[in-house]
């Protein structure tokens, strides 16, 4: 009898726990629920380097300018208009929009000047280089800021002006405390932000570590009801909850079940058919500002020979990689600047092997190498000009080509790059090259390529490049050919260096574009990198919950979407 009573109590408890499932449907139309792949690490805007922290902080702290979703031009955000440039005094004048911080205090030019002062004083990483050339900041009135530059700097608009602005009142106290410590920068970066004050559309309500971040609509948001960039801004919902999911599988199940309204992460091709069939789920496919490429070590044979690099460029079948490896979710790349970065991407570049048949690609590669003095024990083309498996390629000096490796990240880190490495290995082997694709742990790969320069070739990628093409300069300038420098290939070209140095100080965008185009032409000619592909970003949302998502480069997860989406039920009322 006692046993039965215990059993009944256990059963009752179990039923009660199960019953919670039925009573916990969370479908308030004024709450947007977003799934994240990882938890944000910090709410300190100066420390935040991870993408998930930025997904939260970008809704709290705002810059003076943001990108237009269609044209990708800068549009005034906290600023009231585009800056006025005075070449005589090397200064930019920015007029500010009337705005308030989330604590109700007015946003003024003092806040902008303080942000500049803070970044320069502490040399805040990620931002310091965008502000190092600012000589001084003047605030003639609460709504005007004048930036005086030490020298012309092309990245002022795209780097300096998109920096998040912090509140003088809040951060001056933090900065003062940090300055009093032995390591001021470390103290500033490690300051724990519990209630960040911002000018954005949302404010932090609570952060349950490991579980969720809860934001509420900022009643003082300057954009609410205003027409900015032709759009009347909201937000049109009251609360925003970010939940963390350990794996994509589980997040997709949560989306299908209706536990979240959006999964703010790239949906892998394997899930797409299933989600596409789901009548309540909508997929968005957008371009990325990314670069996935094969790089060479130009410091040593065999890839110190540009002819060999061009032959390899012909052999890489980008159509195959995009259609089979990426399953159609990406585009071919021919420049180190993604084609989607329309203003800066040079389109009149050589497209090695593009549109050629397999036979033609091998034939051209063979001719290039044969003309440069390469020989084979068995050439890739027989006497009749038919393809045959080549064997033992020899360098122009007669030595056999030594075995070389193509380093890639492992398949569990990035299957696309790992499989691309294997495919390239096979294509090169068909031409008699002793190529070996070698996946290795990402950290090891970076150390071998970037720190030690101990490699032959590698496949890497950058998933979130800034739109400003300054990175082209960083990647190939000879000054960066040093351990831990960005010039991993060891590309050294004085003409390129001169163009790159001029491009950074050219204030006329059209003139600068010409210089950047010329830099891209040099890279496409010399091929320290072979750009391969730019994957699409595919995101999934519940179509029965919210609508009005704004698509732009990098997807629908952006400030415009979160200021414009409306609950489906309320739309039109």
């Amino acid at each position, binding site marked *: 009898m006692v046993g039965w009573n215990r059993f009944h109590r256990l059963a009752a408890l179990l039923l*009660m*726990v*199960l019953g*919670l*499932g039925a009573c*916990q449907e*969370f479908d308030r139309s004024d709450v947007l629920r977003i799934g994240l792949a990882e938890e944000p*690490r*910090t709410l300190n805007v100066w*420390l935040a*380097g*991870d993408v998930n922290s930025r997904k939260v902080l970008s809704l709290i702290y705002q810059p003076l300018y943001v990108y237009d979703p269609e044209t990708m031009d800068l549009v005034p955000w906290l600023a009231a208009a585009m800056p006025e440039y005075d070449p005589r005094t090397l200064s930019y004048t920015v007029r500010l929009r009337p705005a308030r911080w989330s604590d109700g205090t007015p946003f003024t030019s003092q806040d902008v000047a303080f942000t500049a002062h803070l970044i320069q004083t502490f*040399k*805040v*990483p*990620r931002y*310091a*280089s965008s502000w190092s050339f600012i000589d001084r900041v003047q605030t003639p009135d609460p709504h005007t800021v004048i930036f005086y530059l030490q020298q012309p700097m092309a990245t002022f608009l795209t780097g300096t002006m998109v920096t998040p602005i912090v509140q003088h009142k809040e951060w001056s106290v933090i900065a003062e405390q940090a300055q009093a410590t032995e*390591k001021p*920068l*470390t103290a500033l*970066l*490690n*300051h*724990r932000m519990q209630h960040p004050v911002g000018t954005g559309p949302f404010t932090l*309500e*609570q952060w*349950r*570590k*490991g*579980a*969720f971040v*809860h934001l509420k609509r900022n009643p003082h948001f300057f954009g609410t009801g205003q027409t900015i960039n032709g759009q009347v801004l909201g937000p049109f919902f009251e609360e925003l*909850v970010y939940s*963390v*999911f*350990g*794996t994509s*599988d*589980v997040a997709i*199940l*949560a989306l299908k*079940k209706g*536990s979240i309204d959006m999964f703010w992460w790239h949906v892998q091709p394997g899930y797409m058919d299933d989600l596409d069939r789901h009548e309540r789920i909508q997929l968005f496919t957008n371009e990325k500002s990314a670069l996935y490429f094969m790089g060479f070590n130009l410091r040593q044979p065999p890839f110190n020979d540009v002819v060999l690099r061009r032959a390899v460029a012909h052999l890489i079948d980008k159509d195959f990689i995009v259609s089979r490896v990426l399953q159609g979710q990406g585009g071919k790349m021919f420049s180190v600047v993604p084609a989607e970065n329309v203003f800066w991407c040079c389109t009149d570049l050589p497209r090695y092997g593009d549109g050629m048949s397999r036979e033609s690609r091998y034939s051209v590669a063979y001719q290039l190498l044969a003309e440069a003095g390469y020989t084979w024990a068995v050439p890739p083309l027989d006497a009749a000009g038919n393809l045959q498996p080549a064997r033992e390629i020899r360098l122009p000096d007669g030595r056999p080509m030594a075995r070389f490796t193509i380093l890639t990240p492992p398949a569990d880190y990035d299957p696309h790059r790992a499989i691309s490495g294997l495919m390239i290995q096979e294509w090169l082997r068909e031409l008699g090259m002793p190529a070996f694709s070698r996946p290795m*742990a990402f*950290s*090891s790969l*970076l*150390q*071998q390529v970037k*720190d030690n320069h101990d490699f032959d070739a590698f496949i890497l990628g*950058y998933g979130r*490049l*800034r739109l*400003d093409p300054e*990175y082209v300069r*960083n*990647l190939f300038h000879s000054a960066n050919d040093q351990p*831990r420098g*960005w010039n991993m290939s060891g590309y050294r070209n004085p003409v390129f260096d001169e163009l790159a140095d001029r491009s950074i100080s050219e204030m006329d965008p059209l003139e600068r574009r010409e210089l950047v185009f010329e830099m891209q032409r040099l890279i496409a000619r010399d091929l320290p990198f072979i750009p391969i592909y730019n994957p699409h970003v595919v995101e999934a949302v519940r179509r029965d919950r919210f609508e009005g998502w704004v698509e732009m480069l990098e997807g629908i997860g952006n400030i415009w979407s979160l200021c414009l989406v409306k609950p489906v039920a309320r739309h039109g009322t």
Partner: protein
Amino acid sequence: MGLRRFVLRRLVEIVVIFFVIMTVLFVLFRLAPGDPVARMVDPSMTPEDARLLMESMGLDQPLWTQYLYYLKNVATGNLGISFHYGEPVSRILMNRLPNTILLFTTAIVLSALLGVFLGKIAAWRREERIDTLMTIGALFCNTLFLPWLALIMIWFFAYWVGWFPITGMISPQVWIDPSAGPIRKTLDVLHHMALPLMTLIVTHFGSYLLVMRSSMLDTLKDDYIITARAKGLDEKTIRDHHAAPNAALPVVTSVGLSLAFSINGGALTETVFSWPGIGRELVFSVSHSDYPLAQAAFLLIAIVVLMANLVVDVLYAYLDPRIRY
């Protein structure tokens, strides 16, 4: 040697071992390829930005200086600041530790209870069909691939049937609701705990069952069981009150050790169920070269295991004086 001297000697040994572990941890992470900054930077950032990041983390200092700082910090109870969270690692770990202990301790205790209960029956009815079924079932469950089982459990019980939340430890809707009281919040945690708990029990109880069965089979051959039967005690009493308590000793030892190791959590379980525990942080910190966090997490595990060993050693020494010499 007296018990006090024995304990003192063990304490000194533990301090030496702890120092060795600290040093090995420090060296191991520095020897591992890659540096913490490498994954934080992209070509849009200048080399100056990367240098400033290194400086802010103290990685610009020579290794021996970093080591001395590390020793000084640990000696003063300061485990350092996480590179990624920008928070003291002790705070991060203390935030995660209760979650891990709650899930894994409960799972180990329930698995052991189930294993002992079923192992007892299997041994008692040895070579019958139920014994075969239980033994094969235990072996099968014990070898299940945990992430696969976890996903199947989520798909069936959370997505298809809808009895449980899909993942996580708490529901935002409950915890942001100002009217939700402690009872509702506790039930919410239990509700979220059910699936990972079931998964862990399914994969863990088998080993306890097999240990209990084996131990019980040995015990049943002992003289006092024959004596109990000769006294005319009923079979249930012999099984539950004479054989089982003695046979359960190896299981208790196993549970004790499992409990000590449970603080490292189960990275796979915590990842699939989005359970915010130590295991997930351990994986994150190692994969992102967050040295202070990784070192502190491993040190915490080392301390608990060393302490558990000390307790066991002292208990043994107390119970069996021969061990002290």
